[in-house]
Structure formats: C-alpha cells, structure tokens
C-alpha cells in the first residue's frame, strides 16, 4: 500500500502540482464548496425524513430533486479529494488515523446512501414507517458528519 501511495505522490503530474504554491489551496477551496453543496443535498432529504424541513411533499420527490445535486457535489468532491490525497499520499496521509477513518466513514456513507437510504426514500409513501425514516436520517447525518470531521482533522498540524 505504501509503495502504491509513494508511486502516486511522486508521479510526474503530482510533482508538477506540488511545485505550484496555489494549486493545492485552490483545490482545497473547491473541495470545501463541494462539501457545502453535499451538506445541502443530504440535509434537505434527511430533514424531510425527520419531519423538520419540507413536510408536505412526498419524500421520493424531494429525494429525486436532491439526488441530482448530491451527484454534482460528489463529482466535485471525489476528484478534488483524490488530488489532495495524491499530493501527500506517502508522506502524510498513509500515517494519519484521521485519513483512514475518513475513508472508512466515506465508504460506509456511500454504501448506506445509495443502497439503503435510496431504497427507503424512493419507496411508496404508504409503505413508509416514520420511525425507520428517522433512523435512516440519523444514520445518514452521523456518517456524513464523521466524514466531514475526520476530513477537517486531516488538515490539522
């Protein structure tokens, strides 16, 4: 694994990237914008499931509208995250517990969102149980919060 990280970090593209003093902060800023968008797309559905946000529309309708923006946010977050990771893969990320925690939480969050939450929110309204909806929202918010907090911890000295 470390060899692979080493190969990533010292590839020609990454050496060029690191030699610029502004590419990394700009990529980090775009990553943060993606996070804010992801927050909105996740919250609008989870608040609906909790009965705290939009209330009158069917869950599935809100979920379909929000999913588009969830995909957009992931399309921003994943490449910019990968680039930040590649910049310091072998010298920094490999040794950081926060990084591995984030990867674990991110995998869980993605699987949960697209395998379980998606099935629950797209289901027929008459088959929904309020308790299960709330549980799904709490798990979703906890997983994404863990991803965000662990991500913030990666950047700390």
């Amino acid at each position: 694994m470390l060899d692979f990280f080493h190969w990533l970090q010292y590839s020609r593209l990454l050496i060029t990237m690191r030699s610029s003093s502004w590419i990394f902060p700009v990529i980090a800023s775009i990553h943060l914008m993606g996070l804010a968008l992801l927050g909105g797309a996740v919250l609008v559905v989870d608040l609906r499931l909790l009965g705290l946000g939009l209330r009158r529309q069917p869950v599935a309708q809100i979920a379909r509208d929000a999913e588009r923006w969830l995909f957009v946010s992931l399309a921003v977050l994943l490449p910019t995250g990968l680039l930040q990771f590649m910049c310091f893969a072998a010298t920094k990320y490999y040794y950081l517990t926060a990084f591995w925690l984030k990867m674990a939480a991110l995998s869980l969050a993605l699987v949960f969102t697209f395998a379980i939450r998606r099935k629950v929110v797209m289901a027929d309204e008459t088959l929904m149980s309020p308790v299960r909806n709330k549980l799904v929202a709490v798990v979703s918010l906890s997983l994404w919060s863990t991803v965000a907090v662990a991500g913030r911890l990666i950047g700390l000295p």
Partner: protein
Amino acid sequence: MFLFRFCEWLAATPGSIALHESRYVYLIVLTVHVMTLCLFVGTAVMVDLRLLGLTLQSVRVSEVVTRLLPWTSAGFVLTIISGTLLFYAAPLLRYENIFFRAKMAALVLAGVNVWAFHNTVYRRVAEWDLDPIPPRAARVTGGFALVLWALIITLGRLIPYQVYWFN
C-alpha cells in the same frame, strides 16, 4: 487605525491568549466552523437553486424559503459565533490578512443581497410562488448568492496561505 488599536487591545486579553495557545479548543472551534458552514451554506444553496429553477421545481418557493430558513439562520448564527472565536484567537493576524478582509467584504455583499431579495422580488412571491422557473430578479439574486457563497468559502480557506504567498 481605530480597528488596529482595537485588535491590539483584543489580542492582549487573557481569553484571546488562552484560545490562541490552547491545544484542542481552537481545533474544535475550527471543526465546528466547517460543520456549521455545511448547515448554513448547504441549506442556503438549496434555496438559491430553487430560485434559479434548478431543484424542487414543484415545491412553492415560499415553502422552500420558510421551511429551510430556520436551518440556514441557525447555521448562520453558529458559523458567526465560531468565526468570531477564530477571529478572537488571533485578532492582529486576521486584521492584516488580505483574504480575511476580502471575506468580510464578501459577507457584507451577501447580506445586502439577501436583504435586497427579501425586500423586493420576494415581497411579490405570491405572484410567482408556483413558477418552476422564478422571474429574472429572483434568479439574479439566487445566482449572485451562489457566487458569493463560493467566494466566501474560497477566501476563508485561503486565510492561512497569506504567510506562504506574500510574507
């Protein structure tokens, strides 16, 4: 000059020094700032996207605004509190930071934009509440807001880089 003096005074207060030198509290505040940013900007972005006709098209605009605004406001208050603490931890460093200054200017612009929206086109929301694509004036404020949120996030993220780039 008055602001500089004020920051100088603030930096010498025990609370500021304690926060600056703390091992964990500062980092916790920083994490809270990012988390509440997701709540604040995240929900604001969903409203702005509705104003642009890009999401929740079949939901009334007034409903999106009234149901999400409490969350945006809560996020805003928490982001401002944590942000104030981050400023309080290093008043002089923030004061002389070009990105911090630009971020504050962008925040004021964003505030003006929100105020303008609520006092002009949103007053007549009943006329266009169900429009999948709202009128031009609403789309312009929504678009402006999105640009300003992006700018504020970028400027905030760049604050620590002044040292590497200019000093």
